[in-house]
Each structure stands twice: as C-alpha cells, then as structure tokens.
C-alpha cells in the first residue's frame, strides 16, 4: 500500500503549550481521510504543517514522497502544484473575479492559450455546480456556499492529486452540506483524488470518510474505519458519536 502522507513522531509547541506530541498518521492513496477532535486539539495546526504554512518542532512529515522539513525551493514549488487547498472561509483573492481566481494558477504555471484556459475554467466551474455567468462575480458578491464551491473549483484548477479541506461543510445549510459531500465523493471518483478533511459534521463524516483519525490529548487516539469506532473507548469519541453508536 502506498502512502500519500506520512506523519511520524510529530511534536508542535506554541510558547509553552504543547499541541502535538508523538503524533503518527498514515494516509493512503485514493482515500478520503477525516480528522476529528475536540476544539483546540490541533487539527488546523496539523493541516497547516502539512501545507508548509507552519514550522514543526520535531518529527517528520512526508507529503507525496517529499520530506517537507528538508525540501528545497524547487521541490517545494513542485509539491505545491500537486495539491489543492480549500480554506475554511474560502480565501478567494478578493481583488479578482471568479474566473480570474480560477485562471490564476493556470496562467502562472502553464503556457496555455487564453481560450484554452477559459474552457478549463468553465469546466471546473461546472463540476462544482456553479453557473458560467457566476464567473464574472467578485468574491464579495457570493454567498457562503458559493464561496466554498468557487474555492473548491480554484483548488481543482491544476488537477491536483491531493486535496485538503478544512471544515468544508461548516456554515452551510444541511442541504448544501449534503450536496457538498456528494460532490466530494464524485470528484474523488472522477479525478482519483486523495482527500484530507477536517470536519465537525457527523453526517458528512459518516457519508464520505474512509478512514477516520481522532486527535485527542496531543496524539492520534484512533485511526481506522468509522464503523469500528464504537468498539473504542475514549471520552471525546463517546460524546461526539453519541446517538450514532
């Protein structure tokens, strides 16, 4: 089995607060990997570390075969073109309209003609379920759900192998949230994506996730399928999955 991401013996410290200590994690190719845990347990921090937005204190993180604490500038650029990230609030570039947002990486990293780029943008917009005439809107003119979809379209612009999602369904109404789950499943199958997702949404976890990791007390206390979770004894798991197990 090939691992897309391997985290071993990770330690993260902010000031004198230890967030992760001896954290291990293995993410397989092609799966949807969910991370849950109590508030403040360091889920966002972990994802930021994988994305090279935050330094780690010790241990190693390997993403797509690169050891990210020991990587040169060119390798880092290669790696960044192979992943897509959906930030919690979208983080679309506010000075650009939707079309320009999605086209930006294509313009920067390829020498495709403007026409081809426009076609790719239209295609990406339509797979996430946005209409072609939304393309001229600016991020401030979009609803929360549209922002998420647009941001997803941007993260898919370069056909990444790996997709990071931080709380993709938070702030969405239940119907949009279920639509979003279905979209993620569909994209995984069409584009052969590996998805790493932080979530607090139980329904979304049950519907989409192949492997679930529970962070508690600075470590991964559970890593495995969602169905077996009931056999595991942990206070957070018991409260979180109450009613479901």
């Amino acid at each position, binding site marked *: 089995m090939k691992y897309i991401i391997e985290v071993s013996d990770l330690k993260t410290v902010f000031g004198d607060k230890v967030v992760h200590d001896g954290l291990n994690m293995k993410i397989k190719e092609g799966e949807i990997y969910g991370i849950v845990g109590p508030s403040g347990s360091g889920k966002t921090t972990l994802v*930021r570390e994988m*994305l*090279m*937005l935050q330094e780690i204190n010790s241990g190693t993180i390997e993403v797509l075969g690169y050891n990210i604490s020991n990587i040169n500038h060119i390798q*880092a*650029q290669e790696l*960044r*073109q192979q*992943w897509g*990230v959906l*930030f*919690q*609030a979208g*983080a*679309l*570039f*506010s000075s650009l309209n939707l079309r320009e947002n999605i086209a*930006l*990486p294509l313009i*920067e*990293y390829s020498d495709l003609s403007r026409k081809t780029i426009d076609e790719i943008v239209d295609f990406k917009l339509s797979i996430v379920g946005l209409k072609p005439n939304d393309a001229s809107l600016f991020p401030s003119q979009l609803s929360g759900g549209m922002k998420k979809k647009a941001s997803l379209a941007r993260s898919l612009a370069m056909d990444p192998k790996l997709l990071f999602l931080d709380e993709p369904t938070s702030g969405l109404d239940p119907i949009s949230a279920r639509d979003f789950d279905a979209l993620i499943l569909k994209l995984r199958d069409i584009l052969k994506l590996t998805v790493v997702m932080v979530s607090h949404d139980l329904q979304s976890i049950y519907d989409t996730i192949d492997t679930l990791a529970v962070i508690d007390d600075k470590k991964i206390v559970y890593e495995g399928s969602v169905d077996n979770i009931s056999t595991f004894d942990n206070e957070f798991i018991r409260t979180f999955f109450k009613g479901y197990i």
Partner: protein
Amino acid sequence: MDNASLEITNKNNRLFLVFAGELTLYNISKLQTKIETLNLDQSEEVILDFSKVTFFDTASALMVYNLQERTSQSHIEFQIVSAGKDITDMIKLIKMHKDKTEAIKRLKKKSYLEMLAQLLYSKYLGFLSFMAFFGELFINTISYIGRVKHIRYKEILFEINENGIKAISIISITSFLIGLVVAYQSAYQLKLYGANIFIVETLGLSILRELAPLITAIVIAGRSGSAFTAQIGAMKITQEIDAMRTMGFEPYKFLVIPRVIALMIIMPILIFIADIMGMLGGMLIAYKDLDISTTLFIDRFSDVIAAKHFFIGIFKGPFFAFLIAVIGIYRGLGVKDDTQSIGINTKKSVVESIFAVIMCDALFSIIFTNLGI
C-alpha cells in the same frame, strides 16, 4: 432598596457587627467604607451577626470575605453567627474562586527586571523579523529581475495608477499651498530689508531641495503606506496570503515587489509635480505681494538656482518611496489574526514611515553638505 444597615458595637475588645436588611451591590458601598475604616488594632475578636439580613448577594459576600482576610492577617478571631445556609454557601463560593484567581495572579506577577528583559527581547525579535523580511525581499528581487518574463507589468501599472496618478491632485494642492505659505512668510521679512528679489533664492532652495520631496513623501506615507498595510493585513486575516503560499505564489513576488517598484518609479515624478506647484504658489505671492513679475521671477530663477538642487530633490524620491513601501508592507504582513491588529499596524506603518523619511532626509543633508553639493 436603601434599607441595608450596619451597627457596630465594641464590648471588651470584642467587635460586634450587626447587619440588617437587604445587602446588595446597590446599597453596600456605605457599609463597605464603614468596615474598611474600622480600627481593628484593639480588638481580639470580630463577630458578624446576620440574623436580620433578608438578602445577600455576591458583592456582599466579597465584602465579608475581604474583612475575614484582614482579620486573619492580624490574627484576630473571626466569627459569623446566625447566618442562613444561603449566606454561608455564598461566602464559601467566593472563597473557592478567590483562591483560584489568586493562585493564577501570583504566577503572573513579574519583576521590573523581567519585564524590561522581555521588552528588550521582543524588540530584538522584531528587529530580527525585519531583517528576515529584508533578506526575503532581496532574494526575491534578484530572482525576479533574473526572469524578465515573470515581471508583473500589469500589477506594477495598476499600483502606479493607484498610488501615483490618483495622488497627483492632492500633492499639487498641498505643495501649492506650501509654496504660498513659505513665500508669504518670507515676503514679509524680505520687504523689511528691501530685498524683495531674494524671494527667488529662498523659495527655489527650500522647495526644490527639501520641501517638495518631504511633502510628497509625507502625503504618500499617509496615503499609500496606510493602504498597503490595511490591504495586506486584511488579506492575511482572510487567509488569502496562506492560499497564495499553498498555491506556490510567493507573496513577495505578487504583492511586495510590484508595490515597491511602482512607488519608486512614481515618486520622482510626483516630486517634480510638487516642485512646479510649489514654485507656482511662490510666484503668485511674489507677484501680488512683492511686485515681482513672472518674467523677472523666471529669469532670476534660471540665473541663481543651480540645477543640482532640483536633482537632489528628485534623487531622494526613490529612497523615500522604498522606505514607505517597505515599512507599509512589512507592517501589513505583521498583522495577526484579529481586526484590532490592522488598526495598530496601520498606525505604526504611517508613523514609522514618516519618521524613517525624515531620518533619511537628515542623513542626506549631512552627506550632501559634506560632499559640498
């Protein structure tokens, strides 16, 4: 409401405090002063009687707690009599939380030396991070200039328009007024000595060499420096900068260098405009107040004002622009994840860039004077 009372009697060095009525935060302040001014020196025992109390809140409990602390410090017996369960529970609750908060407070208390050291250390870290910013800027500029294809002309032109073209009117008006004011003030003095024609030297030197560059820099610092900080700071809060980084777009190439270059290009042009407008303001006063015709003014100007003064003023432009842009952007990137931080950093960016411009100007003055220019 105001029906709380306290009666204090002293019997053989035993203090009896008899409370009555509703003790609430609305009406205990008088009782509190009574208790605080109480002289406990002679007493051996303090006895609190709550038998006539009908209501008791947390503020009153805090008052009782403080009194108890005082007595235990001076080793005086303390007793509460005829208190209902509500009252004793409330006092216990206060005691419990007081103990907790006091433990934390004690932990946080620092000596002045420690505070000073921490302040110095944080300044040192700030200095390091500014140096790191310069390093990144330098490396990125080199790789940027190395690849002509990657120069972002569109962004640079956009910034030139935003920060240069659109600033022309305000800079024109400001420098025209400055020229007017300086001329007006000197005209009065010059008239006294009948040295009217020297208005040309006074204005030419001061405006071309010092005033036009400084006024332009100050307007741009207030206008563009603050805009840079606020824009980039907001992009940090909305995670746009993070998104750029994960997409492999160096913020330095996309945000920093275009702004720095744009400002460095446009600043000398703005100073040139400020020169013209300042001199026009001066000429107007010279004509109205000193009867110097425009032809005479211009003839005299080309005779006595060497071109070097003009070039020195223009030469300062790119340096001032660099300082303003770099400080504004550095402060923008320093914004933390909260809105207050944008305000603080914008303020700092304007103050620091104006200060830096004036320092730089002083430095130039010394250098040019020593070089004899």
